[in-house]
């Protein structure tokens, strides 16, 4: 299996006035294709900084970060944008869908920044991505006509549509209730089983249990990197939830 992510002694420092804040103090790990990795850590652990670097939104101060074999430290802003477009699918905590824009158009959005696709291609791929998240019958719904879970599924479809090498989720279940969270995790597990590499940043241990591997950060360093031998099935967890736990 090819290596999707390679981080070697990755450091990221910020200058805050006269003080230098070292958010990442030498992070190294690798992710191979088909893995489902959760990156865990409490606030201040450097989790967000790492996410920004992994997402090619930010560049490391030093160290190596290779995404699908490309060293991003030498790339310009525009090249990074292109890389984000082709290789990464973002899923955000707050969904970040465009308001007053149909689910289909929201999913099509990344394809607009990929020239060489016809309108027909765009639509076809967006429909396929929405089918993959089981929203095929809600193509023309606006975000405000969708539930939180459905909105997040639209966001996942948007992340899938450009066929990225990695889905990068940032607290993707943070705004959802337990049942819906499990539904989203079940969906991600299915996508993972279909071969998608998923990197999921969270602070909930509960969620990490669904992944195949957990990287734990503290104070800008990896303190634990462990394979999860006993992956919990989200589908099963869902069925174990009381059917009507509200009264």
């Amino acid at each position, binding site marked *: 299996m090819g290596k999707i992510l390679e981080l070697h002694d990755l450091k990221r420092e910020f200058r805050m006035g006269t003080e230098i804040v070292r958010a990442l103090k030498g992070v190294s790990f690798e992710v191979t294709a088909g893995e489902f990795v959760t990156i865990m850590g409490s606030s201040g652990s450097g989790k967000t900084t790492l996410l920004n670097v992994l997402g090619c*939104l930010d560049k490391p101060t030093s160290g190596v970060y290779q995404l699908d074999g490309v060293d991003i430290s030498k790339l310009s802003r*525009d090249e990074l*944008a292109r890389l*984000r477009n082709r290789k990464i699918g973002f899923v955000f905590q707050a969904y970040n869908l465009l308001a007053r824009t149909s689910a289909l158009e929201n999913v099509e959005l990344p394809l*607009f*920044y990929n*020239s*060489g696709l016809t309108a027909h291609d765009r639509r076809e791929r967006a429909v396929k991505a929405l089918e993959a998240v089981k929203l095929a019958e809600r193509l023309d719904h606006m975000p405000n006509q969708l539930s939180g879970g459905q909105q997040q599924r639209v966001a996942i479809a948007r992340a899938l549509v450009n066929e990225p090498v990695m889905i990068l989720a940032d607290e993707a279940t943070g705004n959802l209730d337990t049942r819906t969270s499990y539904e989203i995790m079940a969906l991600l597990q299915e996508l993972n089983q279909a071969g998608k590499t998923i990197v999921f940043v969270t602070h909930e241990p509960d969620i990490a249990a669904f992944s195949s591997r957990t990287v734990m950060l503290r104070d800008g360093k990896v303190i634990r990197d462990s394979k999860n031998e006993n992956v919990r099935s989200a589908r099963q967890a869902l069925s174990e939830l009381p059917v009507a736990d509200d009264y």
Partner: protein
Amino acid sequence: MNFFNLIRIALRALQRNKLRAFLTMLGIIIGVGAVIAMVAIGQGSKQSIQDQLSSMGSNMITIRPNSNTSVGGGARLDATSLQTLKLDDIKAIEQQAKYITAVSPQVSGKGQAINGALNWPTSIQGVSPSYLDIRDWPLKDGVAFGDNDVKAASKVCLIGQTVVENLFSGGENPVGKTIRFNKIPFKIIGVLSEKGENAFGQDQDDIILAPYTTVQKRILAIPYIQNIFASAIDESSSTLATEEVSQILRTAHKLKTGDDDDFTVRTQAELINTFSSTSQLLTVLLAAIAGISLVVGGIGIMNIMYVSVTERTKEIGLRMSIGARGIDILLQFLIEAILISITGGLIGIALGITASKLITVFLSWPTLVSESSIVLSFIVCTVTGVFFGYYPAVKASRLDPIEALRYE
């Protein structure tokens, strides 16, 4: 990034905020509409003045007496009381001038015209038969008086439409009838065609034309003439004709070199120029005022685009995170601004043309929508879009995607 996609993205962004886009457009719509309507009013009045002046005969040259004495103490006289123009001057011009085709003296008097029970205050103009050619004024009915009538000082006249309306009721044919002007009977031998108001708002049809000899002897009892009307060969030679006439009259009046002229020669072309430059000034003034509103509209676009960039910071962050480059964001906002101004411009042009038509219909002001004003205002509003849309667009494109995504 394909340009077509960018236009589509910008269009969709505008569709999402139809009301805001429309309100932004409103500034441009009103600006462009105002420019076009204002210029149309200015151009229209200029055109109508020109038409009216030309209707008086564009080759026409008028010669008025002018006091050349600047002796202090004496009362200065009204031009009609000056006696410097003589019939000999007419003869001199007729014989010597090469650039003049026709010449006619003019004397005028005011009085009451009476036909039976009807009466009307009007003026009588004493002219020679060539006057009608000079003024380019055909008869509607009857015949004109000839040189014999001038020689004999016949009591015949031609009357204008206003006089016909006031002295003859119920479609009665005036030709052959006799009216009295200041108690002197005149036989009507012809009716003048309608000429309308002149550029000064005077009714040109409120007139009675008679042989100048008749008016001189029987009404005014004067031997001199008040004005001379002449016609140049064509419009372009009117300046030459003016100089020529001046020279002939100076010789006839025995003026020495250095003496001031005791007459004034005016061409219709000069008059047209004077009025045109006045209305040109009006046009520029109106256009400037309207232009200001266009600039205000542009600033409105800039304002909205700035607000829009701030309001849509998160959207910009999202677009960047899914692969939009700085230039894509810049072009998106720029195209949005340009689309707003172009659409606004097109609507404004339609509005301006409609407004001009309505002004003509309801206020009966003459308007003339010129192509140049359409083209110019269209260019201006496109430039406005680029100019005022650029800075907000640059601001948007320079946002840090991380900051933008986190923006609430």
